[in-house]
């Protein structure tokens, strides 16, 4: 049994909690100062189901952090706890240093949560909708009008300001949802599947908005999505969760490294050389070179693992050309977030 203090559960001290997994926080050198999001050994049990189990990680201002996991892995539960919509069985979550259990009121001023499916009020237009939430956050008079104005400008909903929200398209509704989340200018944004159901254009536009929020406004964006290629493009860090437990957490590069390690790799990078002639000769030639291992030819391309530094890499490239191979393409193979996700997760469902 751990010494985790129970937070809300009546007899949480009777529950045997799983040991926390020690995972490093995203360790980019620029991430200094206090974390804006911190999940500290968070547990949420529903009866015997361990929806969130010893989850810990941190995120910082200006960071877009992806939260990746299969359906039912505990993403939404963790996000709901972080947004003060649910309480942990044990452990705690902090937003800008405020506990979601002890200080939900303060956390609510600092956080903007966009759930995966948020309902729309009937008989209400876009401005009235934003006006209501501005009022709900205590904005008055000119401050309220300015807040609405900024959101309309940022989300480019000005033209639709007087339109009934019932008639908005999915993309526009998501924009409105994001606008509602931003109305009180929160430091931390928690977006649960914001791109779900959007067409490609709307997805790209949403991605731009999210990028702008992190880079221009120094906000922390904590985002979950099933579209991992997209997350890989906008996130600078990620946490992978499965069956309630965090399997990997860190910058995208750190997660890719973990993937390589999980495959038993020694840190070698994979390169691909495409040539117009003599692929078999190239394969043989590569096998004779230092720092090269595991070479395979397929079609007009040869892929090989390489453990050397950039200088040796340059020599290999030069050697290919000097040995008369007609090189068409030479590049390193980037491991995608999707690859990392597939390698790290085991497909466990609860």
């Amino acid at each position, binding site marked *: 049994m751990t010494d985790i203090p129970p937070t809300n559960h009546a007899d949480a001290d009777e529950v045997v909690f799983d040991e926390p997994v020690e995972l490093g926080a995203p360790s980019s050198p620029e991430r200094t100062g206090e974390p804006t999001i911190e999940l500290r050994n968070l547990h949420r049990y529903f009866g015997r189901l361990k929806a969130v189990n010893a989850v810990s990680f941190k995120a910082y201002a200006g960071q877009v952090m992806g939260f990746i996991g299969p359906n039912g892995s505990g993403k939404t539960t963790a996000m709901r706890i972080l947004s003060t919509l649910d309480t942990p069985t044990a452990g705690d979550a902090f937003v800008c240093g405020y506990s979601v259990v002890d200080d939900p009121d303060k956390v609510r001023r600092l956080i903007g949560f966009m759930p995966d499916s948020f309902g729309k009020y009937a008989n209400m237009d876009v401005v009235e909708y934003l006006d209501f939430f501005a009022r*709900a956050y205590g904005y008055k008079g000119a401050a309220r009008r300015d807040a609405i104005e*900024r959101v309309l400008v940022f989300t480019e909903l000005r033209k639709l300001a007087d339109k009934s929200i019932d008639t908005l398209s999915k993309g526009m509704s998501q924009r409105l949802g994001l606008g509602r989340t931003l109305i009180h200018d929160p430091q931390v944004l928690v977006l649960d599947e914001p791109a779900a159901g959007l067409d490609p254009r709307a997805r790209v536009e949403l991605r731009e908005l999210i990028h702008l929020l992190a880079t221009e406004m120094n906000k922390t964006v904590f985002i979950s999505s099933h579209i991992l290629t997209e997350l890989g493009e906008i996130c600078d860090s990620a946490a992978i969760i499965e069956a309630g437990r965090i399997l990997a957490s860190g910058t995208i590069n750190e997660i890719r490294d973990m993937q390589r390690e999980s495959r038993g790799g020694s840190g070698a990078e994979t390169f691909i050389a495409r040539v117009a002639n003599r692929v078999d000769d190239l394969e043989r030639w590569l096998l004779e070179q230092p720092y090269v291992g595991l070479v395979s030819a397929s079609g007009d391309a040869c892929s090989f693992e390489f453990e050397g530094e950039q200088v040796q890499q340059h020599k290999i490239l030069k050697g290919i050309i000097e040995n008369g191979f007609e090189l068409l393409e030479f590049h390193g193979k980037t491991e995608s977030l999707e690859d990392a996700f597939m390698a790290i997760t085991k497909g466990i469902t609860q």
Partner: protein
Amino acid sequence: MGFAGLKTKDGSPSHFRISNEDKTPMSTGQSVANWFERSSDWLNAILVKETRQALKSRQFVITFMLLLIASWLIAVFGMLVGGDAVEFGSTGGVFFGFYLAVLTTAIFVVVPFGAFRSLLNERDQFTYDMLSITTLSPRQIVMGKLLSALVQLLIYYSAVAPFIAFASLLPGFDLSKAAFLLVGAMSISLSYSMFTLMLSTFAKQRHWQTLLTVIVILVLVLQQFSWYGSITGLMFMPFSFEEPEFWWVVGCYVISTASYQMLFLQITTAQLTFESDNRSSGIRLTAAAQFWLFWIVTIATIAYFSGSTGFSFPVEAIGGLGIVSIIHWSVFGLFAATEPDYLSRRVRRNLPRNSFLRLLYIPFLPGGGRGFLYLTLHLFALWWIAVGLMPFTDTHASFQSEPVRYLINVMTFDSAAWTNELRVVTALCCYVMIYLGIGAATGRWARVVSTSIFPTHVRVLTFLLMLAAWLAPYIPDLIGTNYRGGYRLLYVSNPFSTSDHLWSGGSDSQAITLILLFGAFVSLLVNTPAMIRGVRDILTSRCKPLTE
């Protein structure tokens, strides 16, 4: 950089304005509109939203139009049918009765149902999550919903107002009575709305929501039919506005209604309150206030109506009112005593700093141990009220000058001091202590055994336990052949037959009282450690605020 510094995509600051704030002279209409806009800053956000939504809703427009059409038809057909006779008799009162019937259909059915659906829809359409993470408190949300019901109510009144004005010009229209009935109807409608708002917070799953919706509609419609009958009676009933007794009764009604409205508000707020926050104290304080108000108002009423003959409390009233109080404490005690003992850090942090105030506040703080203490203290208070009033009854008037002697006689179990009514009140207090004590202790034990036990399970278990204990003594009678009727000591676990037996002055009343007092004492002993823990937990708790 925060969101406040945001520029448009081309980098220029935005100049878009929602409201018209240019410097051109404004018309009176615009000035009034702007004044309303500014004033609305100070209104509840939910009220503003709900009013905007309601005024655009089809339901509101249809109800409003139907009200107008029905009132217009009443006026036209009334005039046609009545002919010249409308200028004589009490046609004003009859017209008003019809308008009141139409109005109450809207305000007793449509408005409370609208309030019910409005909160239910927040959950149903996934908007409540977004609402609950704003800075609006649960109380503000509930008050906003209630106030928007009031606004709709006033608009419906305004629809019927011209027709009531027309009725007032006819003979037989009693302005005071009409005003009284209209204000009364408004208060009833608001009470219904508050009650339906509370109900809506209990149904969290779709199938319960559907069931509850059907029940609420049925109950509202059925009560409306009973109102149609009552309105006819009210039209012809003389109202004695000049008699103080009339206003005394109205005052009692207002106090009891207000106390229940407060209770419903507290329950609704608690249902919407964040799990780690204090969901219990408001309800406990209101229930205690209701109990004390009930006795104060009752004693004051009896004193008032006793007049010059001197204060005399009917001995039967002690038993009857005691039973009402026992029912009150059975319900609230069940909820308070079966709560989990854990006190969240958030509640702990908001404890009073002053030690004395903290001590006073202990019974009202969440937790089962403190809940049982809360129950015990109030049952003691009830018993003392019953004992204290006894010398003021006709049967024990001789003790009026010697209340201490009466008390000594009670404590020494002098049969003359123990009236049947006092025995009933004592027995019922003991039953509540015993059953809820067993429930609280079982709940604590069950929570140790399994973490899947929640307060609702404990409450259901306690109720089933009580039911079993009430019915068990009759099983031998049902299966045996030698049942001869009458009360037997075996029935002591059944509060109903025992109270009936005590009320009628059974020969073994003394023995039954002692058995029940012993049972209550054991229950108190079993729960004492939990109560001590509950008190110690508060007294030793550090409540340092978190650093800002």
